C-alpha cells in the first residue's frame, strides 16, 4: 500500500481467529490504520490479499463488508439524527430487522435508555463509543474492527468498554483492534502484533512477548520500574524517537 513514493504497509501477514482479540500496536504512522483501512475496503491495495470470511476483500467487497463490523477512529453520524434513528439507519443498511422492542433492548443493554432521543453529538465520549460499538456489532459480524476504541475515554469508561470488547469475543466474534495503550493490549488482547515502518516486527501473546524480550539489553535500558512491561518491550523494539 503506497502513498505516493512512501510505502505505508509492506509484507504484513497475520490471521485473526474466531473468539480472539488481536491487537495491532505501533507508533504514529507505523501503518496500523492503513492496514485496517485496507481490510475495511477504504484503501485499495495493489499487492497481497485480505481474506475475510473466506472471501477476498478486493473481489467481493460487499461480502467482506457484510462479514465485518467497524468502529472507526473518529466515528461520526449525521448530527441531526438521534440515537434511535442512527440505530435504525444502520440496522436497515445491514439488513437487520429492528422494531421498537429490539431498539429498547439494545439501549437498555448499553445503559442508554434515557438517551434514546439525544443526538450523537450530545452524548459523552463513553456513550458515543458504546453506540459506535453496538452499531459495529448490530449485524452479528464474524470480524469486528476497532480503531483505537478507547482513545480519550476516562478510566471508568475505558474499563467498561474493555468488558464490552471481551463480551464480543465471548460471543465468538474475531476482534482486531489498534491501540496506543500497552495497558489495553495487555488487558484485553489474546495476541498482539507490533507494527513499525509498515512491517510486523513482533507477533505473540503479550506475556510471551515480555518473556521473550525481558533480558534484552535494550529492554532493560528503557525499563523504568524495575519490572519489564509491554511498553518497555515496545519502546525497545520501535525506538525512543518521537514519531510525527
Amino acid at each position, binding site marked *: 500500500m503506497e502513498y505516493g513514493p512512501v510505502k505505508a504497509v509492506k509484507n504484513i501477514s497475520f490471521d485473526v481467529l474466531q473468539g480472539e482479540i488481536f491487537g495491532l500496536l505501533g507508533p504514529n504512522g507505523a501503518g496500523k490504520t492503513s492496514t485496517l483501512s485496507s481490510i475495511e475496503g477504504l484503501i485499495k491495495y495493489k499487492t497481497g490479499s485480505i481474506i475475510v470470511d473466506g472471501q477476498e476483500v478486493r473481489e467481493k467487497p460487499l461480502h467482506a*463488508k457484510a462479514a465485518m463490523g*467497524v468502529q472507526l477512529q473518529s466515528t461520526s453520524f449525521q448530527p441531526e439524527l438521534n440515537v434511535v434513528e442512527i440505530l435504525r439507519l*444502520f440496522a*436497515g*443498511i445491514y439488513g437487520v430487522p429492528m422494531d421498537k422492542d429490539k431498539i429498547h433492548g439494545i439501549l437498555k443493554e448499553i445503559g442508554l435508555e434515557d438517551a434514546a432521543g439525544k443526538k450523537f453529538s450530545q452524548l459523552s465520549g463513553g456513550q458515543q463509543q458504546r453506540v459506535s460499538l453496538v452499531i459495529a456489532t448490530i449485524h452479528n459480524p464474524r470480524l469486528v474492527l476497532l480503531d483505537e476504541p478507547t482513545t480519550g475515554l476516562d478510566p471508568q469508561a475505558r474499563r467498561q468498554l474493555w468488558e464490552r470488547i471481551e463480551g464480543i469475543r465471548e460471543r465468538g466474534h474475531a476482534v482486531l483492534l489498534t491501540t496506543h495503550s500497552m495497558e489495553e493490549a495487555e488487558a484485553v488482547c489474546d495476541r498482539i502484533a507490533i507494527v513499525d515502518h509498515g512491517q510486523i516486527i513482533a507477533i505473540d501473546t503479550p506475556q510471551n512477548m515480555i518473556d521473550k524480550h525481558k533480558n534484552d539489553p535494550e529492554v532493560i535500558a528503557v525499563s523504568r520500574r524495575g519490572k519489564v512491561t509491554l511498553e518497555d518491550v515496545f519502546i525497545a523494539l520501535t525506538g525512543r524517537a518521537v514519531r510525527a
Partner: protein
Amino acid sequence: METIIPKSSTALASLLRADFTTLVRNRRSVVLALLVPNIILVSWKGLVKHTGGPFVLATAVVIGLMAIGLMGYSITIARDRDKGIFQRLRVAPLPTWTIMVSRIMVQLFMIILLTLVVFIVGYQFDGILLSVSGYVLTFFVAFIGGAVYLSLGQLIVGLIKNPETVNATTRLVYFLFIMTGMFGDLSQFNDMGKLGPYLTWMAHWSPYGCVKIMTAASMEPTKWGHDNNMALLLSIGYTIVFAAIGIKNFKWESR
C-alpha cells in the same frame, strides 16, 4: 454467524429515511432556500406587466434551483465528508452509489417543493397563471436546471476538500450567477442597464442564462424555439462536464 449481504434497495430506503429526517431537522435552511426566490417573486410584482409572468416566475425558480444545488447539496456534502460520515457509511455493505442517490433524491424533492411553492406564490401574489402544459413542462425543465446546479455543486466539492472553502466558493458562485444573470436579463430593457454585447452573450449562455431562458420558455410551450433548444443542449452539456469532473475528482474523505 451467517453473513447476509443486504439488498441495495433496503440500504437505499434506510439512507433515504435518514436523509429526509435530516432535511426536516434542517427546516430553517429549507425555509431560507424557499424564501429568497419568493421574496423576489413578490417584490417583482410591478415587473410582471412589463416582462410577463414567465420571466418573473423563471427568475424565482432559477434562483431557488441555484440555492438548492450550490448551497443545499454541496455544503452538506462537504460537511459530512469532513465529519467522517461518508467513511462510516463506506465501511458498510452498500454500493457507494446509494449514498449519493439518496442525497440527490432529497434535492429532487426540494426542486419539486420549490417549483410548487413558486407557482402558488406567483398565482396568489402576482396573479400569474400558466397553462396546464406550461406547469407540466416547467417541472421537467426544473429537473434539468436542478441537474445543472447539482452537478456544479458536485464540481465544487470534487475540486475543493475544505468545507469552509466550499462554503465560500458556493456563495461566491451563487452571487456571481445572480449578478451576471440579472444584469444580462435587465440589459434587454434599454433604460435598465447594459453589460455590453460580449458580456450579455456570456450571461445569456451561462449556466444561469441557459436554465433561465429554458424555464421561461417552458411556461409558454408554444414559444419554445431555437434559442431554447440551444439552451437545453448547453444545459445538458454543462451537467455532463460538471458531473464528470466533479465525480472523477471527488474524494470521500477530507484528509
